[in-house]
């Protein structure tokens, strides 16, 4: 598992995670997530387009991040889910909560109705 965190001047933080996020690798991420939270970001975009596998520990860390950012008044949007991670997010009903409308792989949304920005 590798990850990158970048922040823009307008408060947007981007977290990209690649590879396998599981009970072992998630410990590599936790310290940096704490630092991320300490900056109280207005918005965190989580790019999982290169995430190949996730387990419940990995999901738990992302849910924790989501809840804590929201508790600070910020927002979190997950994008790029596919394959196994997408199946897990759907199973755990997180796709309805954490995933941005732009990646919902169902009916394409009409232009004028679902802008979430």
């Amino acid at each position, binding site marked *: 598992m590798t990850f990158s965190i970048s922040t823009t001047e307008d408060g947007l933080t981007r977290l990209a995670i690649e590879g396998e996020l599981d009970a072992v690798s998630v410990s590599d991420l936790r310290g940096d997530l704490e630092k991320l939270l300490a900056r109280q970001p207005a918005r965190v975009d989580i790019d999982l387009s290169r995430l190949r596998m996730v*387990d419940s520990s990995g999901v*738990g860390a992302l849910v924790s991040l989501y809840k804590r950012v929201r508790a600070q008044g910020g927002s979190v949007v997950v994008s790029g889910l596919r394959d*196994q991670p997408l199946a*897990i997010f759907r*199973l755990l009903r997180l796709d309805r909560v954490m995933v941005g409308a732009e990646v919902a792989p169902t009916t394409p949304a009409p232009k004028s109705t679902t802008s979430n920005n």
Partner: protein
Amino acid sequence: MQVVSAVGEAFNNIVLHGYEGRDDGTIEMEIRTRPERISIEMRDYGSSFDPTTVPPPDFDSLPESGLGLFIIRSFMNISYAPGRPNVLTLTKTLDTQMPDEVHSDDPTEGAP
């Protein structure tokens, strides 16, 4: 994919809970395959924990734990016999009706 996820979760549960507080422990795995069925038996000598008695998580509260067991039970049939060893058996029948399968044909069904 479902079998890999379920077995991984079960393995982690044994390490994290069955062998909690220990640096070592044994997990024996026996995999049996037939054309229409795969069965994985996992035996451990740690604390007994019957996963079949745990209620499903409350998804409305965005739980951060208890998800692994739900993943296992959604993807495979499960049986458990406590003892020495504890024996956890995960079974998946392929391409036939699964009595407890969570169907994901339309995951947006019922979404608010």
